[in-house]
């Protein structure tokens, strides 16, 4: 029987020095090509992203250098006749997005909690499907439906709010201004569009709330609402913020639904009264003006597009950061 003392290796090799190596995996030619190809594909996406920014910057340069800082302070858009800037459209973009989030975030949170914690198991899967399907419905169809069906239904509400809640200054519509084609209506339609994506992300987050803690709270005699309030919501807070930011990114960049609904205005006072007719957004500015623009006008639109590109990237980056920092985010995909 052979008893081996680990400190004494066989064949008289000195036990002190060990030659520690990382084995060299010699790859076959096919594997080197495989690694190189996929690496190339990965790099290509990086390059593509850079190239998008670069091309927009190059093409917008003539407009940016002509306008200078006034590009951010001017609200009119007359690239060929003098002043142009994104002050009004940027404001309009954010207003529509905020109206949208104001409706979409609470609804999405409620819907997501319904799916994870309240719905009978039989209707859970169909609901998840439905939410995903809603996310796949083209924005064009939301726009059509919003203008033809929803708008006439919302106008009386706008009227009602303006009359009864008009003591809040920005809710008061100017007499005779009209309520159609407003920031508010566009916001409601965009809310319905971002609702599914927000719901889907929040559902994902809530569904990962620790089952042990939930059962623990129930075992202590807590009600279902108690569980949601004390376990699920605190757990999902970061994910909810992330989902809202994601929705914000979508809402800021939405083009066709907004274009179909608003009647464009560059007047800041009208923009700041969201119930009144008239709204605007960067994306719909581009969509509406593109085909009738001179080459300088196109350069100006490129500059507006660049601004939108940068803003959505920033919003998305913050969203990813918030989600990944939160407790629920570690394993969540957004």
């Amino acid at each position, binding site marked *: *029987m*052979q*008893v*081996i003392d*680990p*400190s004494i*290796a*066989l*064949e008289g*090799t000195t*036990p002190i020095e*060990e*030659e*520690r*190596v*990382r*084995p060299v*995996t*010699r790859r*076959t*030619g*096919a*594997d080197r090509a495989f690694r190189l190809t996929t690496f190339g594909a990965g790099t290509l996406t990086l390059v593509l992203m850079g190239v998008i920014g670069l091309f927009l910057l190059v093409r917008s340069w003539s407009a940016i250098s002509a306008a200078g800082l006034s590009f951010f302070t001017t609200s009119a858009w007359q690239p060929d006749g003098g002043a142009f800037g994104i002050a009004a459209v940027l404001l309009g973009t954010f207003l529509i997005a905020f109206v949208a989030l104001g409706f979409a975030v609470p609804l999405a949170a409620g819907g997501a909690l319904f799916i994870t914690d309240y719905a009978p198991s039989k209707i859970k899967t169909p609901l998840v499907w439905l939410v995903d399907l809603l996310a796949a419905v083209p924005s064009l169809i939301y726009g059509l439906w919003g203008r033809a069906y929803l708008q006439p239904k919302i106008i009386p509400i706008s009227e009602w709010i303006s009359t009864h809640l008009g003591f809040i200054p920005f809710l008061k519509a100017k007499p005779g201004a009209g309520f159609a084609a407003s920031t508010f209506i566009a916001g409601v339609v965009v809310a319905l569009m971002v609702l599914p994506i927000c719901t889907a992300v929040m559902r994902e987050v809530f569904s990962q709330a620790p089952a042990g803690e939930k059962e623990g709270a129930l075992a202590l005699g807590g009600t279902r609402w108690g569980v949601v309030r004390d376990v699920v919501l605190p757990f999902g807070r970061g994910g909810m913020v992330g989902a809202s930011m994601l929705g914000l990114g979508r809402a800021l960049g939405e083009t066709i639904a907004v274009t179909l609904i608003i009647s464009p205005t560059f007047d800041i006072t009208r923009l700041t009264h969201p119930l009144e007719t008239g709204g605007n957004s960067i994306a719909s500015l581009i969509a509406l003006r593109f085909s009738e623009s001179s080459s300088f006008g196109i350069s100006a639109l490129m500059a507006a597009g660049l601004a939108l590109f940068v803003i959505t990237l920033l919003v998305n980056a913050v969203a990813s950061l918030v989600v990944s920092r939160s407790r629920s985010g570690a394993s969540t995909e957004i």
Partner: protein
Amino acid sequence: MTTIEHEVLDLNNPAPELPPSSSLTARGVSAWFGDHKVLERVNLDMPAGEVTALIGPSGCGKSTFLRILNRMHELVPSATLSGTIALDGDDIYRGDIPVTEMRRRIGMVFQKPNPFPAMTVSENVIAGLKLSGVKATKSDRRDLVESCLQRAGLWNEVKNRLGAAGGALSGGQQQRLCIARALAVKPSVLLMDEPCSALDPTSTRRIEETIAEIAHEVTIVIVTHNMQQAHRVSNTAAFFLAGEGEPGHIVESGDTETLFTNPADPRTLDYVNGRFG
């Protein structure tokens, strides 16, 4: 698609220059994950055509050692090692044989049965051919499927279900399918890492019978937590142990019967009698 010419898989020419099974020798093998040393200078002879059992408590480095034997260790990015592993006298880490060729010669069966779920039973058996781009005629493939399933003791159970998905078999059948799959590339050594730990006693018995049947044609190294199993199936055994916060090492190795009945080290006696670990 890669086509690697090597004689081992040439079905028409069953590699007469290679012995039916090979010996493996480990000398001074240490292993690290990052800076965490998990194996300390392991020396072990795994003789050709015999079954070597590796026993020892969990976490003492048996799987790591086994994965070093067919160069799976290096798949972990932080993994390093030292020492030599010789297959019939040739160091598998320093020779000029590519790692894919090495792994083909030293097959492996894992703890959890893992047939390829997208392949049928028969496709699973000949997966090794497909994966290394080896062409074979229809009848050769059919013969290979039958002979490997026969040797793995599975043929009678699945001969009417060759077109079923690999995942549709029971756990024990899946594990024997994995053995058949490993045998189909004609390895000279077969490594088995706790092949029965996920199986019920009946399936375990079938696997043990399979091991006994193929032992004369292929060298087997098996990790097991089942002392009776180690005793039943192996000729040689090695007892691994890791102290608190220390890397694992071999306490004692040698003839199975001696190790189980009359070990030199008291810790071995305690372990094989279930007094710790």
